[in-house]
């Protein structure tokens, strides 16, 4: 406890201390005033205090959680069923093997979702009476697939399509599962794109039109590039979500990471493989989530600098 406090305090002090330490070298004959030094001393002390409080409260929370879980009446059984090292070692390679299917699904569905979502979003913004049916269809599509629970969509497509016994139509649960994912996610992504299109100020379109660009050219060269740029963070968010939902194709029997853990769990009546699969999914989404955060922060910074993109 004491060690944490001291070390953290030092680090905080270093970060705070950089500026005054470097100042005399660069500035021409500038020596920090007593007032400034006093302020910085106070800020350092405050930072040390804050870190100590954070460390203490984290520790207390962790200890309390641990006590609650361990002292639970069913803890011993739970530990055996969910945290068995033997089964974890057995499940891990199988889960990783299955994960390759999830990754492929993510990549292929991700591309399809972006393309389809963009087409639907553009269809919804087309002007003129000729395009009314297209607009109505696009609106109905997004309404329907955003409202339909993904799991039900999957069951209808994965079990319903093969039941029709159509000639030349696949019964492969992976392809059908991917189709269902694409249907649902393209509806979400279409709305993200549409929000982006609407967020571009009308004056941009007016400027493009006044240069003689047609409506379509204005959309393609002026509105869409800005819309897409702005919507990168929410789009990445949807892709993170898609990444984990690829696990749902296992309901059709495709051997992905979830199904691989399921097979072992069913055989051994031990749930550890599920925990392994869950952690693998989390590990897979973390880089993507961090990337999303980074992109968002970068764009916020650019906006704060006065850029309007």
């Amino acid at each position: 406890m004491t060690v944490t406090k001291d070390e953290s305090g030092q680090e905080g002090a270093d970060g705070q201390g950089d500026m005054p330490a470097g100042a005399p070298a660069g500035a021409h004959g500038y020596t920090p005033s007593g007032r400034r030094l006093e302020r910085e001393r106070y800020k350092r002390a405050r930072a040390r205090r804050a870190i100590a409080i954070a460390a203490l409260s984290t520790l207390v929370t962790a200890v309390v959680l641990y006590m609650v879980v361990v002292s639970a009446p069913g803890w011993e059984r739970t530990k055996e069923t969910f945290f068995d090292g033997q089964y974890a070692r057995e499940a891990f390679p199988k889960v990783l093997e299955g994960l390759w299917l999830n990754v492929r699904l993510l990549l292929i569905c991700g591309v399809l979702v972006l393309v389809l979502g963009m087409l639907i979003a553009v269809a919804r913004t087309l002007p003129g009476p000729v395009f009314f049916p297209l607009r109505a269809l696009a609106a109905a599509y997004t309404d329907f697939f955003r409202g339909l629970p993904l799991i039900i969509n999957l069951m209808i497509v994965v079990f319903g399509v093969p039941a029709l016994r159509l000639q030349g139509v696949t019964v492969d649960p992976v392809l059908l599962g991917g189709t269902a994912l694409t249907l649902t996610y393209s509806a979400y992504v279409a709305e993200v794109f549409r929000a982006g299109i609407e967020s571009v100020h009308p004056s941009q379109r007016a400027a493009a039109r006044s240069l003689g660009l047609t409506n379509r050219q204005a959309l393609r060269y002026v509105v869409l590039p800005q819309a897409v740029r702005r919507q990168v963070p929410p789009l990445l968010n949807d892709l993170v979500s898609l990444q984990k939902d690829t696990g749902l194709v296992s309901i059709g029997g495709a051997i992905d990471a979830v199904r691989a853990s399921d097979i072992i769990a069913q055989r051994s009546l031990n749930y550890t493989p599920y925990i392994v699969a869950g952690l693998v999914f989390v590990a897979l989404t973390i880089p993507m989530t961090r990337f999303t955060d980074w992109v968002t922060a970068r764009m916020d910074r650019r906006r704060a600098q006065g850029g309007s993109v």
Partner: protein
Amino acid sequence: MSDAPVLRMESVRKTFGDSVVLRDVDLQVAPHTVTALIGASGSGKSTLLRCANLLEEIDDGAIWLDGEEITDPRADQDAVRRRIGVVFQAYNLFPHMTVLDNITLAPRRVHGVARAEAEERARELLERLGLGDKADAYPDRLSGGQQQRVAIVRALAVRPRLLLLDEITAALDPELVGEVLTVVRDLKGEGMTMVLATHEMGFARDVADQVCFLDGGVVLERGTAEQVFGDPRQERTRRFLRRIVEAGRL
């Protein structure tokens, strides 16, 4: 023939909901002349320009560009806009494109000019307006005055028949106004036909061949700059100009 007006408006009426912005506007713009639209905020100067470029659809009346009625619903609106350049108060540059791409977009995509040729002309124009080193910059790295000059270059790049300038200095810091107005003065020297809505009365007086005072949705008074500024006939014009003088803007 050469004296036939570039732009002619007759009995133009434009309303937004219940508010009548243009009641009955007549206007003639002769080739190689500058027309300044003056008047209080909300007197319809900007709306008039937007109607001339078909960004707004008029309710009644008619507008001709080079003798062709452009308010006819059968007219090709894109073709009309190709012949008119517009510079906006808020610049409206495309923030995701470099200065050069902003300028060459319309020549390349609308007029089918080859990239090399379009860029050459763009650089030439930039050079002339003192922006030669800004070709590859993004708009958000430029000052307001520089952005507005780029917007003027963008409008000129398609060699428009008529240039509409909508309060182009209203968003600029006072010390940047001069550099933009100099450009307009130079364009007048080259014979560009222009209509400008402005609050810069000194500039309007200096550069305009024709001054129109808009009030209550009509052109209340029109004439040469000397007539309108020196000897206004209408009481309302006199009052407007007095307020401007009191504010130290003339």
